[in-house]
């Protein structure tokens, strides 16, 4: 470097010697005469050396030339300083990025996260920024500027209303802890304890050449704050370079750094709770209402459609094979027995518009018992006196019909789908279940007579009226079934007295009842009289005898002649 440093000296014109004031001392005068030029040159060089600004251009040129020739020596000289600094800067940048990524991920799916995403879109900032802005709430409570070597406090600032420990002792401890960790874990001198964390408090430490800057933070400060600490530290060290170089315990000159440190007492507070973002709520409400208006009918329609499908699936004789939405319509496809209920009737029950539903039904034969019976009833046309039922695959016909119907039924029935065999259970007409109670009602009535009397008294006459009413009911039912009714009046007497007289009493009693009822019976009824046979055994009691002094009705039901010819 020597030649470069000397270069400007050579370039300078020979300095002019100022005529010195005439010194009295001849030796001094001689010295001035002989050495004047050189002394002047030396003085000017000294002045130059004392002024760093004057040397800077020379230094710049020297450095440029040196780097151009071989950059390695300079790189080697700077590496111990630059290496750790670069390493730290990179790791901090990465940590800052991780912090924002973590925060962003954490808040991506929450309700608040969605609100923040909306805010990011609205304000045109990145989502990560919005997350950081909202979630990193912190307050820098204290900042310490500490002399690195001695641990003495140079300056200390606190946020308002913060109760702090004696800061000079804290400053001492901060450096002691640095020394302690370095010694304990054998790390290099330039490494340092950058972060200390106790509960909600975090202490961030930045280390400069001569000083430490420590910030006590409550909450979570963004990583950018570390960069601010670094800048502040660099600025303070630059401004106080001279004082730091000769520091011997007098911190008063560092008062000047206060504004810079005060600027680090940052605070990030959450938006006050009172400020409710009504506009956001309003927009959300409108959005919800709009969604409701759009979605509710669709939702209701879907519910009705699914209810309808469920009903169709439960409906005998209907099989749903496919259902869905197509071109804004509900579409259902499947199979339907012609005897099943009409799906359109079910549709009406679900309040679905017929126009919205497209149905495609393929006919099929359902082998469910009720469908087999329906088909049998259609094919065999049984008279009302016949009941059909299915036992396994046997069709059973119970009741009264003419021979022709039974013949036809036994031929046709096995040909029907679902019917294996045909079985008939013929009944006497009076045993038809629907007629049995009516027959019993008529036949259990007795018109009672006193001994040796065959004239109806008022009680007997009333009873005869009741019999007529029962007969009318039975007749009506029988006609409904295609049957005709025949009546026989039977006279009866007890076993006391003369047998001939009793015979006569039987005749008269039967006749008396016949005469009493014939005029009031339904027209067209055939009534005959008959005598009860004389009882073989004598009546054991007077009650039994009284019961025998009576007239009563026997009924007979016949298949009507027209039913015989019916198909």
């Amino acid at each position, binding site marked *: 470097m020597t030649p470069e440093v000397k270069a400007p000296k050579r370039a300078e014109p020979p300095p002019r010697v100022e005529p010195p004031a005439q010194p009295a001392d001849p030796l001094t005068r001689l010295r001035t005469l002989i050495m004047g030029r050189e002394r002047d040159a030396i003085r000017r060089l000294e002045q130059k050396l004392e002024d760093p600004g004057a040397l800077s251009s020379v230094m710049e040129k020297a450095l440029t030339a040196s780097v151009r020739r071989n950059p390695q020596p300079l790189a080697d000289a700077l590496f111990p300083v630059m290496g750790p600094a670069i390493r730290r800067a990179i790791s901090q940048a990465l940590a800052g990025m991780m912090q924002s990524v973590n925060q962003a991920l954490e808040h991506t799916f929450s309700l608040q996260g969605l609100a923040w995403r909306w805010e990011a879109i609205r304000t045109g900032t990145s989502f990560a920024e919005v997350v950081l802005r909202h979630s990193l709430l912190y307050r820098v409570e204290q900042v310490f500027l500490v*002399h690195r070597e001695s*641990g003495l406090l140079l300056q200390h600032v606190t946020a308002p209303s913060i109760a702090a420990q004696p800061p*000079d002792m804290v400053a001492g401890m901060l450096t002691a802890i640095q*020394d302690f960790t*370095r*010694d304990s874990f054998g790390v290099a001198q330039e490494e340092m304890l950058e972060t200390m964390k106790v509960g909600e408090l975090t202490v961030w430490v930045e280390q400069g050449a001569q000083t430490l800057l420590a910030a006590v933070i409550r909450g979570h400060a963004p990583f950018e704050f570390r960069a601010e600490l670094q800048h502040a530290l660099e600025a303070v060290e630059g401004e106080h370079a001279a004082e730091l170089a000769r520091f*011997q315990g007098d*911190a008063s000159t560092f008062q000047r750094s206060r504004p810079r440190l005060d600027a680090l007492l940052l605070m990030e507070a959450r938006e006050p709770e009172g400020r409710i973002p009504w506009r956001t709520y309003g927009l959300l409400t409108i959005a919800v209402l709009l969604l409701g208006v759009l979605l509710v009918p669709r939702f209701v329609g879907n519910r009705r459609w699914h209810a309808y499908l469920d009903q169709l699936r439960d409906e005998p004789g209907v099989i749903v094979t496919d259902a869905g939405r197509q071109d804004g319509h509900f579409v259902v496809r499947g199979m339907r027995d012609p005897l099943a209920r009409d799906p359109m009737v079910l549709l009406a029950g679900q309040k679905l518009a017929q126009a919205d539903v497209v149905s495609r039904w393929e006919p099929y034969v359902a082998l469910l018992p009720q469908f087999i019976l329906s088909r049998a009833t259609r094919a065999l046309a049984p008279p009302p006196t016949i009941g059909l039922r299915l036992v396994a695959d046997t069709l059973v016909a119970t009741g009264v019909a003419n021979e022709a119907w039974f013949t036809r039924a036994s031929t046709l029935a096995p040909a029907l789908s679902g019917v294996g065999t045909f079985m008939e259970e013929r009944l006497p007409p009076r045993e038809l279940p629907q007629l049995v109670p009516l027959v019993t009602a008529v036949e259990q009535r007795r018109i009672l007579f006193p001994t040796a009397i065959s004239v109806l008294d008022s009680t007997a006459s009333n009873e005869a009226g009741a019999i007529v009413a029962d007969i009318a009911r039975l007749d009506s039912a029988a006609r409904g079934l295609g049957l005709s009714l025949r009546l026989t009046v039977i006279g009866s007497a007890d076993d006391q007295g003369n047998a001939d007289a009793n015979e006569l009493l039987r005749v008269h009693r039967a006749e008396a009842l016949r005469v009493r009822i014939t005029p009031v019976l339904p027209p067209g009824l055939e009534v005959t009289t008959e005598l009860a046979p004389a009882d073989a055994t004598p009546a054991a009691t007077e009650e039994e005898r009284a019961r025998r002094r009576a007239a009563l009705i026997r009924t007979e039901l016949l298949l009507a002649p027209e039913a015989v010819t019916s198909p």
Partner: protein
Amino acid sequence: MTAVLQKKVCMLGAVGVGKTSLVRRFVESIFSERYQATVGVKIDRKSLTLGAIELNLMLWDLQGEAEHQETRLEYLRGAGGYLIVVDATRAATLDTALSLEQRAAALAPNAPLVVVINKVDLTEQIEVSDARLAPLTARGSSIVRASARSGQGVEEAFRSLAEKMLATTAPAAEER
């Protein structure tokens, strides 16, 4: 207007010589019989007024030196001065003090030193003789006999060191 100066002062010595007790007596005027070993370092502060100067002494009470644990003298960095404490009742602590003095002088050649002979109230058990103290004073450090229990010599020891430190600082202070 008084000028305020801060100085870092380290307490060195063997284990149990009474470094912490001296600091407590000096700072809080308290003495406790209970012994608690110092781990690492404890820091205290005491203000002294010397003439027109208010001096804040930051007292670094270092862990005592024992056979298996050397005091970490890295803590001496930046110290304005230091005290080496000797237990008057244990001659062995004088050897430790000598060893510490040599190592400390190498690390902080310009920092003034005051040697404190502690526990002098235990007159009957005193083992450290004046003759043996000679090597300690070779580099010009002064010796103060003190007792943390009675308070004797404690203020004097710290004040003496403070004055020495101010004397070395004076040129720089004037320069300002």
